């Protein structure tokens, strides 16, 4: 379908208005929301992710694309619900205690929503106890912890310890990400996975859900 390619192209270029218009147009023409999501939005964001990885796109452009995707998802959500399209899983996310950076976390959240997951965003500067309480309330399959500073990344460990102390560690998988963290750090603090960028985060979530 030509319009799906058009949708993906507008998304890659970060044209939110055009993405919204084409999304609506496709729905009017009878395309299923699932097709629009998979063959338009996710296809577009996959290209964005690749271009980011190869240095063809940088964060400002990626944010534009993510913002456009968010607009389209708003249009699609009621239709997805009406069609009974089920969430692929519940993911909870938060930037750890003491850290006020959220660009990366927000980007991952939008990408996960686009990939069909339900995302619960606990926001910034999340205390370890708040993670524990939110796990008890929402029972997510995965928690994503974000930190941007060498000084706050250690609070990822504190959050994981609090979750373990509450007897909840076996009930959730934990994914970490952020500029200063690494696979080694994830291993050291007992996280289940590490993702170095938003695209990888979606891949890791899919892997963890399937495991």
């Amino acid at each position, binding site marked *: 379908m030509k319009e799906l390619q058009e949708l993906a192209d507008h998304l890659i270029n970060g044209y939110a208005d055009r993405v919204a218009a084409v999304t609506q147009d496709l729905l009017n023409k009878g395309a299923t929301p699932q097709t629009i999501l998979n063959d338009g939005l996710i296809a577009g964001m996959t290209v964005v992710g690749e271009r980011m990885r190869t240095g063809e796109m940088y964060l400002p452009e990626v944010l534009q694309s993510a*913002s456009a995707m968010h607009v389209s998802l708003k249009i699609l959500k009621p239709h997805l619900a009406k069609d009974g399209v089920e969430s692929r899983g519940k993911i909870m996310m938060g930037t750890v205690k003491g850290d006020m950076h959220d*660009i990366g976390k927000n980007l991952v959240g939008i990408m996960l929503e686009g990939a069909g997951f339900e995302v619960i965003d606990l926001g910034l500067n999340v205390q370890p106890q708040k993670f524990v309480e939110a796990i008890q309330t929402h029972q997510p399959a995965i928690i994503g912890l974000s930190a941007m500073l060498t000084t706050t*990344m250690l609070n990822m460990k504190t959050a994981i310890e609090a979750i373990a102390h509450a007897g909840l560690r076996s009930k959730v998988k934990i994914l970490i990400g952020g500029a200063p963290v690494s696979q080694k750090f994830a291993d050291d603090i007992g996280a289940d996975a590490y993702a170095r960028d938003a695209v990888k985060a979606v891949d890791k979530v899919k892997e963890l859900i399937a495991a």
Partner: protein
Amino acid sequence: MECRPSDRVPFVPAIYEHKAWFVHSTPSVVCRDVKLFTEALLAEYESVRPDALTVGVDVYNVEAEAVGCKVRYYGEGDSSVPAIEPDTVLYHGEDDIGSLRMPDPSKDGRMPVNVEVAKNVVQALGKEIPVRGAVSGPFSMAASLVGPENFLMLTITQPALVHEVMKFCAEVIKQYATAFVRIGCGVVIFDSQSSPALISPDMYRDFVLKPTQELIRSLQTLGVNNVPLIVGGNTSDILEPYLETGGNNILCDYPANAGEFLARCSAARRAFRRNIDSSDFITTTPEKLRARTRECLDEGKGYPGFILGTAVAPFGTPLEHLLAIKTAVEEYSKKGSA
């Protein structure tokens, strides 16, 4: 640190929020208290004996706070680093540019605290060691004023406005930096929001280079000949414009390629600071740190402009870990000059 031959490699660890640890306090308390902040810097010097001191705890907040953003300070015993409250950003669109107020470094926010602390430390140690007041780079300050995500998007949607905000920020920083220079203090510029982790090399040239060049030039006009410019992350892709800023010592953070920095900085006769990764500073061992330091020192072997530094030391980094790095630098220098 000025690219002149020396008997040893200078050691400049990044101790900002960790300063508070030296006086058994927290970053939120120390950064607002002239006496404690001064004592923290003096204690840092006594304990670590670095080759330069930086007057700054939460180095990216001061200018934006002085313009009117709110900073979140943490309560007693909480060692979290103060940060701009995201919902207090001042700039929401082009109508706001005229309402931004030029702060007075002698009155607004914590600028007078930091200048007073710098004055105290220059009086106490100025003859022994370079003392530098920390200022934000224009791009980083602008990101704080506008909110990082919005600001990054504006670089695409409204580039002319970005230039205007940058102009305002550069002027604020110039005034603040001048206040440091007037009391005999040096200046170090921090601009990690302009790293390629966030913006492209083309964007760096378009938005960051010119205001940064002008800022550094204005400091040089005031007699500050050694202006370090700190941009964290892997900056290999912006190495050329980074050098064109005029900063005469630049940062080669741990993810960057030290070989490229050595080649380009040697040709341009600039110093560079190679950082050791600090992410495991609290949990690692002195032996591992000594080994890592030697590896880093090998990367700049023989180059007179090589400085050994660290990424930001987390609050609570054991003193023996910082001293292990320093000892390794000293031993390496002795071995090299023997």
